[in-house]
């Protein structure tokens, strides 16, 4: 079958996009529209499911099937859909509040079940839609509408939590790094099992510049390290810095001072997540923050495959269900 070749514009719905001018969400939308045609997957088999938040308006703007559900629960709708319609490509769109505050539990359970969906978590470290309260990823001491004296909760790292739930695909990208973002979304789509992509997204209205260190051209070379499977961890404008594993921790070294063999070589495919967990914990300003695919382990059974395999197996073993046989099983009697 020859599928028609689609363009980004084909993935745009007829709805007006209603984010604030300058919001990082636009760039993520643009990349998604650019990447989907490249996957060559039928539009009508593509579904976007979101929770509630600025980010969660995303499905309205995609000319695919979509559901703007309720706050925090997007992964659970996806679970019902993907378990019964495994042939669909399902994307879950969520925010830091949606996924990690009210939805934290569903997030973990989706990952541990390894449901074959792609979760894109728009992390702006704030509640955008409700106008600027702190979120579980807001930094300690952050002043927001609900924390005039500073936030006192210790922030959560979505990547750490995902790895602890034995996620099979964990990645991070940045709204402003359009190319990197596009590649990361593609890698997520290619993975069989739950793919988590955290995207640093600027909320220019309520938390402007919170991740400028990673977004801005001038600063980012020093503050982020781009992971590539099989490649050493090198960063800095001129590649002058690297990361080395020493004993039980990661440290920054000068690439001129250490032999390149000493640098940590990124292994996204390692089933043992030990190093990946260390990477997930690297935080600005002490360390550069990793972007790219931290972990991508294939071959782990997915929930949707298994639930359907049990049905197939049961049919193979017992034959297609026969209602009358079921009703008449066990003790029955006749009244004339």
């Amino acid at each position: 079958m020859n599928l028609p070749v689609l363009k980004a514009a084909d993935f745009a719905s007829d709805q007006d996009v209603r984010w604030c001018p300058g919001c990082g969400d636009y760039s993520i939308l643009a990349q998604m529209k650019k990447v989907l045609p490249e996957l060559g997957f039928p539009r009508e088999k593509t579904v976007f499911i979101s929770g509630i938040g600025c980010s969660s308006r995303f499905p309205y703007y995609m000319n695919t099937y979509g559901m703007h559900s309720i706050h925090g629960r997007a992964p659970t709708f996806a679970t019902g859909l993907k378990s019964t319609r495994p042939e669909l490509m399902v994307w879950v769109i969520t925010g830091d509040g949606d996924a990690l505050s009210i939805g934290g539990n569903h997030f973990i359970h989706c990952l541990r079940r390894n449901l074959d969906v792609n979760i894109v978590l728009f992390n702006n470290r704030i509640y955008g839609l409700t106008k600027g309260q702190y979120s579980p990823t807001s930094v300690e001491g952050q002043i927001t509408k609900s924390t005039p004296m500073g936030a006192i909760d210790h922030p959560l790292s979505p990547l750490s939590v995902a790895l602890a739930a034995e996620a099979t695909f964990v990645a991070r990208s940045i709204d402003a790094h359009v190319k990197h973002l596009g590649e990361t979304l593609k890698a997520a789509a290619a993975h069989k099992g739950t793919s988590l992509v955290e995207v640093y997204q600027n909320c220019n209205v309520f938390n402007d510049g919170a991740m400028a260190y990673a977004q801005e051209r001038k600063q980012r070379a020093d503050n982020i390290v781009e992971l590539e499977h099989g490649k050493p961890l090198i960063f800095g404008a001129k590649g002058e810095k690297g990361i080395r594993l020493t004993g039980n921790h990661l440290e920054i070294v000068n690439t001129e001072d250490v032999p390149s063999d000493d640098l940590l070589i990124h292994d996204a495919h390692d089933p043992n997540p030990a190093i990946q967990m260390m990477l997930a914990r690297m935080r600005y300003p002490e360390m550069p923050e990793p972007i790219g695919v931290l972990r991508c382990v294939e071959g782990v059974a997915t929930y949707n495959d298994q639930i359907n395999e049990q049905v197939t197996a049961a049919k193979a073993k017992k034959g297609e269900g026969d209602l009358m046989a079921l009703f008449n099983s066990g003790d029955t009697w006749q009244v004339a």
Partner: protein
Amino acid sequence: MIDTSTPPATSKTVETVSGITVRLCGDSGDGMQLLGTQLTNTSALAGNDVATFPDFPAEIRAPRGTRAGVSGFQVQFASQEIFTPGDTLDALVVMNPAAMVTNIGDLRKGGILIANEDGFNEKEYKLAKVESNPLDADVIEQSYRVVRVSMTKMTRDAVSEFGLSTKFADRCKNFFAMGLVYWLFGRSLDPTLRFIEEKFSKKPDIMNANMAALRAGWAYGETTEVFGESYQVEAAKLEPGTYRNIMGNQALAWGLIAASQVSGKDLFYGTYPITPASDILHELTKYKNFGVRTFQAEDEIAAVCATIGAAFGGTMAVTASSGPGIALKGEAMGLGVMLELPMIIVNVQRGGPSTGLPTKTEQSDLLQAMFGRNGEAPMPILAPRSPGDCFAMAVEAWRIATECMVPVMLLSDGYIANGSEPWKIPDMKDLPEIKCSHPAASDSDETFLPYGRNENLARPWAIPGTPELMHRVGGLEKEDGTGNVSYDPDNHQHMVDTRAAKVAKIAERIPEQDVFGATSGDVLVVSWGGTYGACLTAVAKCRDAGHDVSHAHIRYMNPLPSNIGTLLRSFRTVLVPELNAGQLRMLLRAEYLVDCVGINKVQGKPFAVTELVDAITHHATTLRQTKAG
């Protein structure tokens, strides 16, 4: 299917009676539920009508020997149609003092009390918190026919040849008790022997010992001089057909499977375990070869949301819980209403509020079903009236859900969920036809309207995978027709009205309310849900006693059948018995402005027929006096 078996011949006198109510009680570990189930099945196989009421402690293994640890199973079997497990007991079997003191109150004067004498000793008195042997009380001897049987000892003797340890030998004593009960009521041993054979096929010693104990119990009845006669209950004249015994949760599960089959859909069941709904999960998960997928979610919210997700995908989707879990589903149910997708939400009600009385029955979630969501979020509600009716109402729920594209609430309760009754096996062709159709891309040239509507006000069920019908749904108010997000005031009014009208219109698609008795007169008893049997029986008794009383049992709670208003207004008094503080009553009063009077009981227990007879008689008599005066 097996033939109605005949019991082994007895040499004693046999008295024929029209029905027997017996309760078997012992410690939770004594196997009373098993015993009760066997007696029920055997009686059903003998052609009796049967009705059961299991009642067990909230604890998994409540402390042995204590009152809290008593587990009971009541069954009534009769040669005419019956609708309840009976009020007062003709016979009571007790395995220990705790069982006796907590149950003796329900034994009728002159009834038979069979006690396992070996279970009555100092240690047990202490556990049961009684001073001395309660069997020895004069009042007991005077009020009942007391039969003391050394069950433990006789069981040990009977099974000695199989070389079991005392612990295992003693476990057989429930089969000894069963044998004795079987003798007393002329039941055949065959079905239970066969059951033992299947269940213990891998442990031949235990199998043989249990069979021996059962036979020994029978032989004891036949031999001992304590019993002069046994009783016999002839087959009931039920509607012709093939029957089986069925429990409410099982019938509900089977109804869902049947609905999925007749509608040509696989079944997705998303749930989180909770008493008394969990058995639906346990039952459904056995039938994966019927295309059933069960999803044990991380919580009730995930369960209902996954159900909505599956419904969006075009699958028959169902979720179930009990009160506290249903409370958690409220927000998502509102989304279901907004998305206008078909699905079923089952609530197997239990005693509330909060965690309440989790193993007890109650009907106190009707108003939660009606109103437990934010905003104007009407939903159709159906309520089965008996264990077997759970089957029919499950099918009906799916019919309405798909015809009207609406989530439907099914209100069962612990009493019918765990109770059982003979169920006439339906023919597949008697099941209602349920057509599910999904629009295809080529259906029309016009722009596809995901919120366009048909004559039922139902929107099209367009599912992902269909080319050209791509659309987005969500919880924000949507424009009728296009389904786009809309903040337009008039559209909002229109949509609120439309969602209400869609549910109200269902009244056109359900049967009118039927009435037992005259359709006008002195007293109308209006009931719903699991109280059907008790109310019907009570009304029948009152009619037999010459009172002008009729009975309307509602199974369609929202919308109510269209003739209800007329009906209510055709009686001088309307009584509404409910196991809550008056929830249906309030709905009827609000809707029809009829001064319905409640008969309310919130004790975690079903109505006794006599309670209802008394209450109805009181009202009927007062009315007659007023008329006369």
